[in-house]
Structures are given as structure tokens and as C-alpha cells.
């Protein structure tokens, strides 16, 4: 990049959404290829590898996240319509859901309370600051929901977005192994657990296992978004009075 011509091109590109958007898709394309090469090993989760690759490229080229997000926002935006789209697999699994409504409701409520309660309690016990505790509390909900809740209870929404992604990756990577260990074989139970704990990234992983697991994970993700929004602010208040700081 010593030539002025190239530098001009770089200056132009780094300020335009085209670069960030293209980089995102190329990185994901490469990550997805690697994922297929490793025979869909959960350790090669495409979110992990593409995020790592993009951060390396941005740091190496001295590009700021704000500049990158000019383009990244177009992909990020699609989270909204994708959430709406979850109604389709939900509808297709409705017959199965109707006979399971009671177990699903109980598991969901327990799961949401455990997810938020355990993360706040653990962060507190391990000496995390209040901001970290509050940013962690909604980590199992899908990104747009979690960010809104985080803001409401005194966390950092942008940090929450990152923690949400890390939580999803953790769930997607460990999920299938964990279910093997605890001998849960039923795709509906696995799907519900995946969706409650690891939202959309877990759901993406669940769809790779079976469409039934995916649909139940999507269902759990959607319903736990509701439950998290309603329960977590109240739960956090309650815990503040129970647990000494």
C-alpha cells in the first residue's frame, strides 16, 4: 500500500459498506467450507472461525469496527426478518407442540430462570462487576432481545451482544456432547434445551442435527425471548436483595 493509487482505493473502500459486507460473506463462506471439510465438527463452528478471521483482518488493516459495521449492518439487520421467519418451522411442528405444551412450558420457564439466575450468581461470586453481571443476565436470549433487556437493567448492550454470541457458540459447540453424556436422546428435549440456552446459534446447530430438533430449538428461542423479556428484569431485582454483593 505504498502507492498513492492503492491508498486512495483503500481509503474509499474502507469508508464504504461494500467492503464490510463482502468481507463478512467471504469470511463466512471460507468458514463454512472449513466446517464441511471437518465433517461438521462443532469445534469448527462457522461463527467462531469467521468472527476470528474478520477480527484478525480488521486488526491487521487497522480498520475500526464502526467502519466494518457500515457493511456488516446489512447482515445484522436480517436477524429481524429471520426471527419473524421462525413462525414457519413453528407452524410446521405445531401438531407435535400441541401434545407437548405442558412439558415445553415448564422446561422453558425453568430454563430461562436458570440461565439468567446462574449467570448473575456465578459472575457475582467470581467477583465480576455489576455491569458485567447485568450484561450477562440476558445472554441466553436472542441478540436484539438481550440487548434491549441489558440496557433496561444497567448492562452494556454492545457487550451483551458479544456475550450472546459467545453463549450461542458455547452451546452449539458443547450441546450435542452434553446431551450424549446425560443420555437425552429425544430431539424435542434437545431442541428445547438448545434454544433456551443458546438461542439462534444453537438453533442453527440444531437444524444440522434434525429438522425436528431445529424447529423445537427455534420455538424455544422464540418463547424464551418472551419469557426473558418479562422475567429477567424482575429476577435481577429479586437477586439483588438476596445475594450480598
Amino acid at each position, binding site marked *: 500500500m505504498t502507492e498513492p493509487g492503492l491508498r486512495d482505493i483503500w481509503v474509499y473502500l474502507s469508508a464504504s459498506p461494500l467492503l464490510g459486507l463482502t468481507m463478512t460473506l467471504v469470511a*463466512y463462506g471460507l468458514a463454512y467450507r472449513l466446517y464441511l471439510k471437518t465433517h461438521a465438527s462443532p469445534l469448527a463452528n462457522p*461463527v467462531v472461525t*469467521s468472527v476470528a478471521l*474478520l477480527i484478525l483482518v480488521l486488526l491487521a488493516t487497522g480498520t475500526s469496527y464502526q467502519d466494518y459495521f457500515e457493511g456488516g449492518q446489512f447482515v445484522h439487520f436480517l*436477524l429481524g426478518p429471520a426471527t419473524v421467519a421462525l413462525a414457519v418451522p413453528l407452524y410446521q411442528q405445531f401438531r407435535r407442540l400441541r401434545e407437548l405444551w405442558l412439558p415445553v412450558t415448564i422446561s422453558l420457564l425453568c430454563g430461562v430462570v436458570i440461565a439468567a439466575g446462574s449467570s448473575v450468581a456465578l459472575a457475582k461470586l467470581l467477583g465480576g462487576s455489576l455491569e458485567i453481571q447485568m450484561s450477562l443476565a440476558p445472554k441466553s436470549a436472542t441478540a436484539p432481545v438481550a440487548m434491549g433487556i441489558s440496557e433496561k437493567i444497567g448492562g452494556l448492550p454492545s457487550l451483551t451482544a458479544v456475550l450472546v454470541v459467545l453463549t450461542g457458540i458455547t452451546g452449539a459447540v458443547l450441546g450435542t456432547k452434553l446431551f450424549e453424556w446425560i443420555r437425552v436422546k429425544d430431539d424435542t428435549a434437545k431442541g428445547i434445551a438448545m434454544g433456551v440456552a443458546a438461542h439462534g446459534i444453537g438453533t442453527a446447530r440444531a*437444524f444440522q442435527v434434525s429438522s425436528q430438533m431445529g424447529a423445537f430449538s427455534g420455538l424455544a428461542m422464540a418463547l424464551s425471548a418472551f419469557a426473558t*423479556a418479562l422475567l429477567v428484569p424482575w429476577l435481577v431485582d429479586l437477586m439483588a436483595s438476596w445475594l450480598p454483593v
Partner: protein
Amino acid sequence: MPFLNGVTLLLVYQLTGEILVRLLGLPIPGPVLGMVMLFATLMIRGSVPDSLGQASGALLSHLSLLFVPAGVGMMTHFGRIADEWVPIALALVLSTVVTMVATALIMQLTTRWFVTPQRVEDEPND
């Protein structure tokens, strides 16, 4: 064209969700309400139109991609994460594991209790 119609439909439901959430002061995000309304519509209609099937299939088959830009945001929080990495990492991983294990077991148990002839088979793995 069907694909485009499907995408339009998803956006219309999302937009309606966003507007209603703000008008009614609901504590849930707009897209989640949009999903509920679309689900209700499908229930009333009784089938998934082809256009919607195509659009939702395309979005959901690459759901992981959509989380990438938010994940890259990690680079703006390196400092904070480095300062408090022990509570963050342990709380995040342990709580995710506990949540998944507990939810899966609760779901399995309650399914056995409440759903009559639901047989959970032990199939040989691998």
C-alpha cells in the same frame, strides 16, 4: 418473484410488530411480536404459502451468518473482557452448560410425566 414476496411478507410482519410494540409499550422486541402474528396468520390460513416457505428457508438455513457482525463487535470490548475474563468466561460457560443440562432433563422428565405413551428409545449411537 415468490422469494421476493416472501421477504416482503416477513418485513411487513416485522414492521407491524415494531409499530405495535411501541404503540402499546410492550416489553418484547418487535420481531418477536411479528413472529407471533405470522404464526397466528398461518394457523388461520392452514398452510404455508410457497413464497414464505422459500424466504424463511433461505434465511433460516444460514442463521449463523447473521450473528457474525455482532460477534466481530468483540474487538471493541477486548479491554473489558481482558480485565474481567475469569468471571465472564466461567459464568458464561458454566451457566450455559447448567442451563442446557437442566432444561434437557426437565423436558425429558416432564414429557414422561405428562405425555402418556411417549417412549424415549435408547438407540445405539455412532
